[in-house]
């Protein structure tokens, strides 16, 4: 069984479209509402999906781990992480799952750089993402074209071993690092991203760096 985890925080306007696209596909969809203050929870309830709700906002990494744990308990074989804001294409879920189903690898990361159609803002493409790659490479020893991608698929075994402890946005780097530590086989596939807004910007990147550094200090 393939589970699609959709963490959502104040996505009431966009999540409806995403869930209606998803419900036509043969996946079990789990929405984790991260204590949204809008109608995200109510919108999600209208669709044929499992809905979980954080009573207090714990941020995206925490929501993903909640989804992972729930999916594991429900007997998931493959878990896919998918954004609630309509940035990703549901038609590409089959592409990201395919390498796992063929037994080629344990984890698949979507990459905005291996292709194709994603239109990246110039500042992101030439400044922020290269910087992010550099940090991941020096700090974590990870070589990926797109370590900050939120679109990924993993086997049951990976979800059991890779426990997300970074509640905030540093979870992307954390997952990549832990996957490397456990020596799981990785593959990257091209993905499409449609940008609505700029996303986290440079300040967000610095916050991720701070979270990662402190987690190394306090361990």
């Amino acid at each position, binding site marked *: 069984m393939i589970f699609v985890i959709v963490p959502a925080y104040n996505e009431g306007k966009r999540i409806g479209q995403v869930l209606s696209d998803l419900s036509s596909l043969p996946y079990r969809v789990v929405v984790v509402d991260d204590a949204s203050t809008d109608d995200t929870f109510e919108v999600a309830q209208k669709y044929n*999906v*499992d*809905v*979980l*709700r*954080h*009573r207090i906002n714990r941020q995206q990494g925490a929501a993903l781990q*909640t989804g992972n*744990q*729930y999916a594991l308990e429900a007997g998931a074989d493959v878990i896919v992480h998918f954004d609630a804001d309509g940035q990703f294409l549901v038609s590409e879920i089959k592409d990201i799952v395919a390498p796992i189903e063929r037994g080629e690898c344990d984890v698949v990361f979507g990459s905005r750089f291996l292709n194709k159609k994603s239109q990246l803002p110039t500042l992101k493409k030439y400044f922020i993402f290269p910087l992010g790659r550099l940090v991941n490479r020096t700090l974590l020893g990870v070589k990926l074209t797109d370590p900050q991608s939120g679109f990924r698929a993993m086997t049951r075994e990976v979800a059991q071993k890779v426990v997300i402890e970074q509640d905030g946005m540093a979870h992307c780097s954390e997952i990549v690092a832990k996957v490397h530590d456990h020596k799981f086989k990785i593959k990257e596939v091209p993905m499409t991203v449609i940008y609505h807004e700029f996303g986290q910007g440079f300040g967000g990147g610095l916050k991720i760096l701070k979270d990662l550094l402190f987690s190394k200090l306090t361990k």
Partner: protein
Amino acid sequence: MIYLQVLITLFIIAILFKLFKQRQNNKMSVFGFVIWSVLWLVVLVVFWQPDTTTYLANFLGIGRGADLAIYLSIVAIFYLLFRIYVRLSKIESEITKVVRKDAIKNAEKK
């Protein structure tokens, strides 16, 4: 200066008294009691004999006793900040665990 010294002395006596009472009621470990008592006694000595810090400072290669006090307090403050940060992240992760458990328990299945 004598007024301030008397005031501080009374203040410290009150604190020592409170420490002693807390120790008697077993609200404080022996270790904590000793550390806090020594700390406040040191404050008392420094207020009555400010030169003692200068001896110590000179011994450590620092010119003035006041400088030594400031250096030590900065180190102490940063150490406390770090301790608080560690404690906070622990509390945060505990909250996440509780929230997660609650979310999974109350999941609405379709």
